[in-house]
């Protein structure tokens, strides 16, 4: 039996699953107070194993494993993104207090496992399993806003965290229900669960059943990507969640759901229904761009601001699907954008983590006032991430946007491009507000001034300097953002080859 079990290609999944179990087991085995380093090591090792496996086998042939999970270029790339985001989340959690830590790390690994499963799903069942694994882990992880040393149990922060988790759970369950219902309808229309068979079965097909099924699946995934009008959960959830989890959700969930959307679109590519189903998606995308950028203008909390920004970025990403779902060029552009988003968004969250930590006031805009004069190095990388999110040239975000626009021009997606350009200008202002704060110099920001109590508290907490893991995350994100912005050529070539393997 073991002869036929494909251990080696399944290493990404096995490592993540094994890692999550190992962390819990270590919690049981090790004496109290000794486990911290072990848990972290186990987590990091399993993430690195997953990451290393896909990264070392970039151009291996695609294969479908156990009839349910595809290991192809698309999977490899997006698993890298998800594992990278999880790794960053672990790095940003380095200061967490020991209480709940093992469970928390295990949940992060399970969420990454869910993402990897979802990304490579080759049939509807695995897709749903992956989605649920990802969602359930995150529902709980959102509630685990701890309790850094400044936050006592039962305080507001804890309640807010729980409230956010509960909201996310209830709304997420509705979306999961819709997706499950859509899967049932799609099965009814196609007569198969398997995407490869579905592609043949659905060629030229178009029926009410098929359209309804596809639409509901798209809605379910749109919820995970926080496209409008399914975005309302995101700001609350991000604000309530621990920063590390918010960072993981913003990048990992988005990437995984996008990959799943690509899988479904590829499966339905030859049916007449896909084009009809994509039209509401364009509306959702532009609505997301508008809601995200308009919503971001007035936020006073950085996590909420980044949540709104994520809503807009999900909208931009949908341009990759124009021209009939999964096309090679669209995929390249989309994959590049996801990669760029990984670096710049994780980076932005890392800055919040480095400056404010998980304290209540840590992500408030005032906390960042005059940052340029207090912590110039962090302020400058922060500036880089904000500019990249805004799409300013010489950053990853700019190249990503250009690629999407080029793809949109080729496929005639005028509506989407107009949305992108108009909302880019608006959201540019939203990011700029943060830049203003960073550069604002006020007398009261001078040392020992009477800054806002929250800001001072946070400054005191963050004032000890950056812990090495957070510093590493900042550095890597900054380098990635710059590298993709200045020398996108080699990455683009790699993506093009991967996409060839993926389709």
């Amino acid at each position, binding site marked *: 039996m073991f002869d036929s079990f494909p251990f080696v290609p399944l290493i990404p999944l096995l490592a993540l699953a094994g890692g999550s179990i190992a962390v819990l087991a270590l919690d049981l085995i090790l004496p109290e107070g000794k486990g911290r380093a072990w848990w972290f090591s186990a987590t990091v090792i399993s993430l690195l194993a997953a990451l290393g496996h896909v990264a070392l086998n970039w151009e291996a042939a695609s294969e479908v494993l156990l009839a349910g999970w595809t290991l192809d270029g698309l999977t490899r790339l997006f698993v890298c993104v998800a594992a990278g985001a999880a790794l960053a989340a672990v790095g940003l959690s380095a200061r967490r207090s020991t209480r709940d830590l093992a469970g928390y790390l295990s949940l992060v690994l399970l969420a990454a496992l869910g993402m990897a499963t979802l990304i490579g799903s080759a049939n509807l069942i695995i897709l749903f399993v992956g989605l649920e694994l990802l969602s359930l882990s995150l529902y709980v992880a959102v509630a685990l806003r701890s309790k850094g040393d400044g936050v006592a149990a039962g*305080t*507001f922060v804890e*309640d807010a965290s*729980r*409230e956010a*988790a*509960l*909201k996310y759970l209830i*709304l997420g369950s*509705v*979306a999961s229900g819709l997706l499950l219902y859509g899967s049932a309808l799609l099965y009814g229309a196609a007569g198969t669960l398997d995407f490869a068979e579905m592609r043949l079965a659905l060629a030229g097909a178009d029926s009410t059943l098929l*359209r*309804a099924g596809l*639409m*509901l699946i*798209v*809605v379910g995934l749109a919820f995970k990507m926080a496209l409008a*009008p*399914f975005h*309302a*959960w995101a*700001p609350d959830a991000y604000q309530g969640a621990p920063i590390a989890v918010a960072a993981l959700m913003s990048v990992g969930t988005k990437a995984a759901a996008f990959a799943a959307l690509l899988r479904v679109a590829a499966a339905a590519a030859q049916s007449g229904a896909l084009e*009809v*189903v994509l*039209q*509401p998606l364009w509306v*959702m995308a532009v609505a997301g761009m508008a*809601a995200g950028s308009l*919503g971001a203008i*007035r936020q*006073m*909390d950085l996590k*909420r601001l980044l949540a709104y920004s994520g809503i807009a970025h999900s909208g931009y990403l949908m341009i990759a699907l124009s021209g009939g779902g999964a096309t090679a*060029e669209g995929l*390249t552009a989309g994959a590049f954008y996801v990669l760029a988003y990984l670096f710049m968004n994780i980076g932005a969250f890392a800055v919040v983590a480095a400056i404010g930590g998980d304290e*209540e006031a840590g992500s408030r805009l005032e906390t960042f006032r005059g940052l340029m004069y207090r912590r110039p190095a962090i302020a400058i990388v922060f500036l880089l991430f904000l500019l990249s999110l805004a799409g*300013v*040239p*010489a950053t990853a975000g700019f190249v990503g946007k250009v690629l999407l*626009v*080029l793809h949109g*021009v*080729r496929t005639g997606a005028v509506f989407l491009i*107009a949305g992108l*350009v*108009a909302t*880019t*200008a608006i959201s*540019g*202002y939203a990011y*700029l507000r943060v830049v*203003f704060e960073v*550069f*604002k*110099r006020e007398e009261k920001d001078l040392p020992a001034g009477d800054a806002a109590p929250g800001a001072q508290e946070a400054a005191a907490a963050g004032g000890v300097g950056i812990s090495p893991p957070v510093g590493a995350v900042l550095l890597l994100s900054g380098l990635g953002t710059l590298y993709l912005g200045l*020398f*996108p*050529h080699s990455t*683009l*070539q790699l993506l093009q080859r991967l996409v060839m393997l993926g389709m």
Partner: protein
Amino acid sequence: MSVGFVLPIMLLLPLAGALIVAAGRNKFSRNGLAGIATASVGVSFAAALAALLALRSLPEGEALRHRLIDWGSWGGEPFALGLLGDEVSIWWMLVVTGVGFLIHLYSAEYMADEADYGRYFAKLNYFVFAMSLLVLSDNFLGLLIGWANVGVASFLLIGFWNRRQAAAEAARKAFIVNAVGEVGLILAAVLIFAQFGGWTFERVFQGVETAPVGALTAIGLLLLIGAVAKSAQLPLHVWLPDAMQGPTPVSALIHAATMVTAGVYLVVRAYPIYEAAPLALHAVAVAGACSALFGAIVAVGQSDFKRVLAFSTMSQVGFMMLGAGVGAYEAAMFHFMTHAFFKALLFLLAGVIIHHLGGEQDIRRMGGVGKQMPAVYAMFLVGVLAIAGAPGLAGFFSKEEILHAVYMRGEVILWALGVAAASLTAFYMVRLFCLVFAGEPHGGHEGGAGGRGPGVVILIPLAVLTLLSISGGWLHIPGVTDVTGAYLGGFFDRFSRRVALIGQAPAWLGWLTIAAAGVAAWLSAMWFRPQGMGWKTARAAAGRADQGPLAAGFFVDSFYQALVVRPLIGLSKLIGLAVDPWVVDGIVKGLSGLAARAGSAVQAVHRGHMRRYALSVAAGAGLALLYVLVV
């Protein structure tokens, strides 16, 4: 081709300067910082001169080229950041780096009391880099990147004194207005790619012949939106007067001599597109003429020294636009150069005077400045004469050439607007001159709070600019010299669709403008001479806030506030209210209220907005389903 390497030198030296100065701003001495920054621009100017010589030695029709960054190809289209040194870009570079060098030099002394000396020079160097990138790019994408970067540099420098609320507001306003322009430019770039399949000027201009006029007109008009925003032309000029919150050398370099002419550069650079789209070209001319007149009218009612000059800049750039808009690109380039000389001179002198009066900027409270600083008096007089169009000085020849071309194109109405603007220019400049220099020193300032007069480091750039303001126009004296014509050669003939002008311009044309400006100057001098009517009114109103439509720039600002800013905020609120109950200024209130009430998390979920969220999910899904089932 082999000499293309001077192009990256020109471009990258100021960038290197900016980085070095920024890194060493707390380590190096002040002289070191100023020296590095100034030298980098100076060498860059030398490289521009070398490029000029290299270009002259190439056969006509060829240009210097250099490939800076290769981004590879994507979907068959090569992506590269290339540099192009042809007649137009070298011309611009000479002025940008030349005037830039002089203003760096001036700043070294002028900003000497500034604590953030290094930060200032780093930003100023960064601006020169960004402007060079804008001008030297050989494609629309690179131009756009430079365009965005000069916007950032301008934003940083307007808000240089970031403890001042007004400076921060002004920086923000400039950024937002320019974002509007950038949207136009980006859309133009998208259209260009859709139409021509690439961004390089070469490729685009070759395709112009066969492209549909509709597309070209759309591209031209979108480019014009960008140009209008950056060059502070109607109706997007509102940021420029506020931009005077920046340090005065910045106003001289960025908001007078160079950056605000980027719109003119864009039109001149894209002239093949405009030649093929007459409607768009005409729009350029109309925007220019209206701005020239509008700026001149409003300048009459300003009482802040720098705001007078700001509106004057808007007006003068309007002349350049007018010239470009009737196809007289050479004239527009010529006026760009002379204007850079005399406007930089005027601004730099304004800085000296304002320093001398201890920060006073209200011209109604000035007077008698010349008695204390005769050299400044003389140089300012040269600047005033040059801009007002006194025969023989720089501004005269370039402005005449534009008005001449406008008339010869048969655009009589635009020509009349231009003449009116030119005579108003004489009027407001003489007014400014009288209020600042004539009469006795106004109470409170005599003796000069600034104490010391300008030193050598300030006087050298001023002297050079004064000489250039006198002689800059001699490059092209009709019938005598034609350096600009010889330099440009047939550059604009390649794509120009203009029929050759027939006949000689009537002789009265030039005399008429001279006479109109002369009369206006005389009226102004009578009105604002010491103890004249205007003089008394102005002195009586000193210190009070300005009122009336002129001072308020015909309320364009209030108009935007009511029609754009408030609705946008309203929309944002609406979106917030619809789905986001944490709107946002009230977030602190919300937090504390919640903390008070939070018994259990479950309770919180029962509050209203959970239902609202669920409703939006259900409604969205329902609508989407309905759509796919019905269609």
